[in-house]
């Protein structure tokens, strides 16, 4: 059941009505049942894997909590749980990628393995990370294990977040999920408004710009120079509006049930550096990677020993860098491969890693530069930094959709073959979008930028609530009509998956 389907809206409407009709103590059971139903609609086969993850992480976490710290069995059970769940994810998601690489290597010897056609449960990367996070927290003693299997199962199968995040922590959600709520029209309105904004981003912007982005991304040989610029920006707008649109819908839906899921974006395109960008983009995933990959690696004994050795051989500075470098490389490798089973994503992750490490190396120089040049504190310089960060992010994205062998050539062509005259004669409008689509896109992106500016100071819904009722009505109803008329949906529309559903 897609978030952009009529079935989902009907399902949601019925569920909200039932939710507030039944006694509070049964609300969580209804949500759990709804989660199973929602997931089963995508194929009952996937449900089996979800239940395996639920049962294994719940049971093993409970067992671990009963074993005193320091005992070997505790660690063995932890490793068993990790291997089982990471194994399911790895096998289902990466087997074909693995076979593809093996086949490439063994091709000269005439050896070839056939690919598998296994079911890939919807949102497996999300719910696996969420469950493993809980499981690890219990092992580390950061959170108490949940004794009630149903409660824990709801945490994993809470349907709004199941297919595209955000990746929540158990200690953040447990009190919210089970306490029960009475009907609150303000909360419902607020949730619906957030959903509407999500649908706007997804249906009006993302699905409209997608053909342009895809056309350019899939033909690296045909489009150089200015087309690389257009492809780069359109791909970024597509991805941002698709992902944040989906997350807005998810958070809005959760809000209808009284649940405040963690925010996943904090105005990432207002970031002044790549490091800041990654603190504000897909925040729940980045937090997960920081807590469960980056920190454990950088603080592990083996990396510590390596750091000491490096300190002795290469000096103090290098020794200090070793944990950071190793943890960053592993974290960004995982980030890349998590996004998709292909070398494109691995390269994209590594490219980000390199860019971040370079900026880390340059940070002391940058600080000095700022101190000696006061104009760097001006708004104009701030704008320059924002634009620079946006372009760096866009350029790094090229590793995601262009073959690795083409990225550098196309990057160079952005400057050497830049010729806006190529656009004269309406060439842009032969790329899957019409001039009307283009106009809608320009206006919609302008609206998104404007709301971004406004919400930097005041959350948009708060800003809206301070306007007179008739202005609120015009703005909200206007937005609704925009989605209704200009949205890409309905007959003839391939109810396209959210990009981030695929992870």
């Amino acid at each position: 059941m897609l978030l952009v389907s009529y079935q989902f809206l009907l399902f949601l409407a019925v569920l909200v009505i039932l939710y507030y009709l039944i006694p509070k103590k049964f609300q969580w059971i209804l949500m759990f049942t709804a989660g199973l139903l929602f997931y089963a609609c995508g194929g009952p086969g996937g449900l089996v894997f979800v239940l395996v993850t639920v049962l294994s992480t719940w049971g093993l976490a409970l067992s671990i909590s009963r074993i005193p710290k320091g005992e070997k069995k505790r660690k063995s059970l932890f490793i068993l749980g990790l291997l089982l769940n990471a194994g399911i994810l790895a096998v289902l998601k990466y087997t074909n990628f693995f076979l593809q690489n093996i086949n490439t290597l063994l091709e000269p010897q005439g050896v070839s393995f056939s690919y598998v056609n296994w079911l890939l449960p919807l949102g497996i990367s999300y719910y696996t990370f969420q469950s493993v996070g809980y499981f690890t927290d219990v092992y580390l003693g950061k959170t108490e294990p949940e004794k009630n299997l149903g409660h824990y199962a709801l945490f994993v199968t809470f349907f709004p977040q199941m297919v595209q995040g955000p990746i929540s922590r158990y200690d953040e959600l447990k009190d919210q999920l089970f306490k029960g709520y009475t009907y609150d029209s303000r909360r419902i309105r607020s949730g619906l408004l957030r959903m509407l904004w999500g649908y706007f981003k997804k249906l009006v912007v993302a699905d409209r710009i997608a053909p342009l982005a895809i056309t350019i991304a899939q033909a690296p040989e045909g489009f150089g120079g200015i087309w690389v610029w257009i492809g780069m920006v359109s791909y970024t707008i597509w991805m941002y509006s698709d992902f944040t649109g989906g997350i807005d819908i998810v958070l809005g839906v959760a809000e209808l049930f009284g649940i405040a899921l963690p925010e996943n974006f904090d105005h990432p395109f207002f970031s002044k550096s790549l490091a800041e960008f990654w603190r504000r983009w897909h925040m729940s995933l980045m937090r997960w990677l920081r807590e469960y990959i980056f920190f454990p690696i950088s603080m592990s004994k083996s990396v510590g020993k390596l750091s000491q050795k490096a300190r002795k051989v290469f000096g103090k500075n290098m020794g200090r860098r070793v944990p950071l470098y190793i943890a960053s490389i592993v974290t960004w490798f995982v980030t890349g491969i998590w996004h998709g089973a292909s070398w494109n994503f691995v390269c994209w992750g590594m490219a980000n890693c390199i860019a971040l490490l370079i900026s880390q190396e340059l940070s002391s120089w940058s600080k000095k530069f700022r101190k000696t040049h006061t104009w760097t504190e001006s708004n104009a310089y701030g704008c320059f930094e924002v634009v620079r960060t946006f372009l760096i992010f866009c350029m790094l994205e090229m590793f995601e959709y262009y073959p690795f062998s083409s990225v550098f050539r196309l990057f160079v062509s952005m400057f050497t073959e830049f010729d806006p005259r190529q656009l004269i004669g309406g060439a842009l409008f032969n790329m899957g979008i019409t001039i009307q689509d283009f106009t809608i896109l320009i206006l919609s992106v302008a609206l998104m930028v404007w709301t971004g500016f406004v919400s930097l100071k005041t959350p948009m819904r708060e800003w809206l609530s301070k306007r007179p009722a008739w202005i609120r009505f015009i703005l909200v109803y206007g937005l609704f009509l925009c989605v209704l008329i200009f949205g890409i949906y309905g007959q003839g529309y391939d109810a396209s998956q959210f990009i981030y559903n695929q992870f």
Partner: protein
Amino acid sequence: MDSKKYTRFFIAALIIAGSLTALTRLLVPKYMGQVTEGAFIGEYYEDKSSHDLLILGDCEAYENISPVALWKEYGITSWIRGSAQQLIPQSYYLLEDTLRYETPKAVLLSISAMQQIEQVSETYNRMTLDGMQWSDAKLMAIKNTMMPEEHFIEYVFPLLRFHSRWSDLSEDDLKYYFHGEPTTHNGYYLRADVRPAGEFPEERRVRNPEFEAKGYEYLDKIRELCDKNGIKLMFFKAPSLYPVWHEEWNMQIEDYAGTYGIPYINALKDIEKTGIDFDTDTYDGGLHMNVYGAEKVSSYLGPMLLEAGLQDHRNEPELAVLWKEKENRYEADKAAQTKEFAEKGYLAKYAGEYTH
């Protein structure tokens, strides 16, 4: 809620309902241009007179029989409820729908649709179903004939289906915003251009010539509904040369008609008797009749329809006046098309020259 809130709520609801209705009206296709088939079904509701004969079916019904010719020659009052690729189940629901307004004495069912029981394109469904007024018949027609990828809600709120037409709006959408123009003559699609029958693509092989059970199910329903309402049911096969009407199909219709005593008029086997000349009486190379062919088919049908119990109403003054108006419009349309075709060799509206 205090009274002020009630008022606000009421005004907001009014604005929402009004604007959505207005937008829907603007964005739904008007079918006034090159493709007019989508307007056919709805035109029935505009005609307040009763009809002795109801003709049901797909293009073989609405392109091959002229109700005005039936009136002129035999005084038979008739209406064709047909649309492009209209399925047999849809013909059944249109019969149900018609019975809400009148009970014809006879139903002439074009049976060519028996060979294609599932819809092939959503567009055809919309052209048939959108034209129906809301009733149980329409609900059931949508439910039982929509394609798997269609959504019921898009029939209830057509804006959801046609919202993307915002970028294709034309003058027609404003011109016919409130009301369209008649596109048929009692459901008949008049064409006065001529394209002689030529060569046809190779005959498609029919793997399984047996009609599907669903077709028979609805044929039974039509028959039972006619029996229940005292309506004489007749089957009709138009004299279309292509797509080929296979003998296996013909025999099945003959068997069914024989079993239930239903007259089966197969004009395809009576080409000589109809007097059709495929050099002059077809507008699309033998697939469908033009007005000259349709008039010949009507002349051929008339005696059989009278024999089946239909009456000549030409001596009834009220009907005579009403049908005179229809006849005048029909003749004017026919003359205009004939003149244009004689001058240009084609009809601009159907040659893509219609710009709206």
